[in-house]
């Protein structure tokens, strides 16, 4: 078995609603190895998306630890966490979350503009642009580089989102219902693409889904209920 690239150790997360504390995650232990695909299944409200946010360092755990490559990262300063998120993790969301003012190419390029200054980016802009173009070509959007999200179909938008998630060469992709907003034909195409790229690059995938078929294509299925891992 490969070394774990992503770990959750006894992660708890609760939100405060007035004087009440609402527990969302209750002692989650999870490990994803390099090159492994893991499906996270569970009913709505089980805490899947929250776990994804905690693992992606978008939301700190109330207690417990998040580890990247065995190193604890949840307690790092906010700037370092942002940088690690950029280098270690790629996000794919159900609603694509593309920036409407930018073209497909610019949306993807944005992923490489986070860890360098304007001058540093300017010096290697041609190289980055070529990489982004190649990435979009790989997801089948070589002809749609300069289209804005509003000019793209749902499947195309999700492909742009996948290209953006992968451009910074992350070790793990966290996908939150990536096909939840697509029709089945389009969804199949997107899923095929994701798994192809995952295999080519040896990425770890953690997919939140309700789709049992999609989950079945993963190496491992983790089921959650009421904020706890019940199997897997």
């Amino acid at each position, binding site marked *: 078995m490969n070394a774990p690239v992503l770990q959750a150790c006894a992660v708890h997360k609760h939100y405060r609603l007035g004087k009440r504390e609402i527990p969302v995650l209750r002692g989650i232990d999870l490990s994803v190895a390099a090159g492994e695909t893991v499906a996270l299944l569970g009913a709505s409200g089980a805490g899947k998306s929250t776990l994804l946010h905690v693992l992606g360092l978008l939301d700190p755990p109330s207690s417990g630890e998040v580890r990247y490559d065995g190193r604890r990262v949840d307690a790092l300063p906010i700037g370092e966490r942002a*940088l690690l998120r950029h280098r270690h993790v790629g996000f794919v969301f159900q609603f694509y*979350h593309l920036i409407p003012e930018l073209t497909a190419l610019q949306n993807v390029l944005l992923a490489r503009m986070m860890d360098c200054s304007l001058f540093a980016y300017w010096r290697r802009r041609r190289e980055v642009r070529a990489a982004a173009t190649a990435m979009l070509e790989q997801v089948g959007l070589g002809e749609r580089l300069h289209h804005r999200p509003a000019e793209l179909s749902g499947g195309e938008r999700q492909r742009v989102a996948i290209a953006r998630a992968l451009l910074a060469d992350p070790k793990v992709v966290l996908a939150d219902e990536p096909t939840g907003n697509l029709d089945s034909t389009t969804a199949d195409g997107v899923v095929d693409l994701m798994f192809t790229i995952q295999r080519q690059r040896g990425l770890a995938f953690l997919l939140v889904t309700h789709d049992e078929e999609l989950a079945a294509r993963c190496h491992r299925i983790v089921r959650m209920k009421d904020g706890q891992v019940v199997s897997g």
Partner: protein
Amino acid sequence: MIAAAAPFLARRYLLTRRINLLGVLGVMFAVWAIVLVDSVFTGFVSQIRADVRSGAVDLLVTDLPADTSYERLRPALVDDAVVATAPRLRHHGLIKPVNVRRGGERPVASAEVDFDHTLNGFALLLGIDPATEEAVSGLRHWLARGPEELETRHAGTFWRSPVLDEPDAERRAQLLMPDADEWRARRRSGLPADHDRDQHRSQWPGVLFGWQRIRRLGWFAEAEPFDVTCASFPGGDAPAAVHTHSLRSAFAGTFATGHRAFDESTVLLPIETLRTLLGNDAADPASIDLVTDVAVRLRAGLGTGAIADAKERLRRAVQQTLPAGSGPCLVLDWEEQNRTFLSAVAHEQGMMQFVLFVVMLVAAFVIYATLHMMVVQKVKDIGILASLGASPRSIGAVFLLGGFAVGLAGTGLGVIAGVVSARYLNTANDWLYANFGVELFPRIMFDLRAVPCDLQPSWVATVAIGALLLALLVAYVPSRKAARLNPVTALAHE
């Protein structure tokens, strides 16, 4: 470090949202207005100060007791810093043209009620000794400038006063007009005159009017007769009664010091004439060289400290010559002589700057409002940026740079517009007046030949830096709000 994404996104957001033009236009208008209006005001104030300065003497010894004799004061006025002194006598009086309608009635019908009674015969009479006055003030320059001012505003030429060029010192002291001029004036007015013009000798002491007064009263020919009347209370134990004295005089020239109030209100006449009008006839052996003020010219090149020292020395020396129990006399420099007026002008400039600052605040508020709206509309984008690994600082920088860019564009355009409009203000004003009869800056209202415009580079730089700092300050608030947004909440935002 600010990520490259921040300026990239700021630029995209600005270019795709036309509402940001409001902020640019707001800052541009505010900067333009501040640069232009303040340049005009600075020019105006500089002009006013220069004019006031040209109408004032270096120092004025004043607040002297009644019946002060100039001869008694003279020893006290000897000082290393003093170059020359001249006696002055001030009193209110009435001026009435002898053969032009009632006392000072305006020759031109006007629908406007004239509350400015100084133009209707009342005048501040300032008695001067022309010989010494020339040495302490710009009397000769004032007399040269008077006709020029009239000619600038009206077609035609106005005659130049010859009284200071009179070779006879006695006649010059009386500001007497040439004999032939007075002879002609007498004939025109039906007043007694020698049959033979060459036999006539001028007798009327000359009076000099400010160009403003002449403009209102009408243009007068050389030596036009005027009656000057003074009312005074006799001193001593005599019962309180008003004594009036009248004297015929000749219009001997028009002056312009540049100080509007002085030119409007003051009539210059020989000091001996005014002494006589006040019952202090030189022929009377008991008469004295009566003065109310002494004008002082200081050595050139004295610094502020040296002038202050000289003032204090003169004040002490003069005070010592005054009778025991006299009130304190004053020695005023040119600014102190016009303190109220200059303070009012400075106050007006301050108020104007405040109003313009408020305009700038409104422009800054527009930037704030548009950026705040942008943050609200871009909450989801903020979540996306966070998920891509943008630090809070970089997220805040997107909006801070946006505000700075709006401020920079507005400031740049405003500075260009301000400098260009200040540079071509008079050209534009003339063109508008010639083509449309519209004057943006009615010069006649301020008696100016051209709109004074003093564009100070330091002021332009101050305004530009201030506008940029203000833009940054107001942009900081929404950018901070953006930086502190919870990424998860932002991603869930609909």
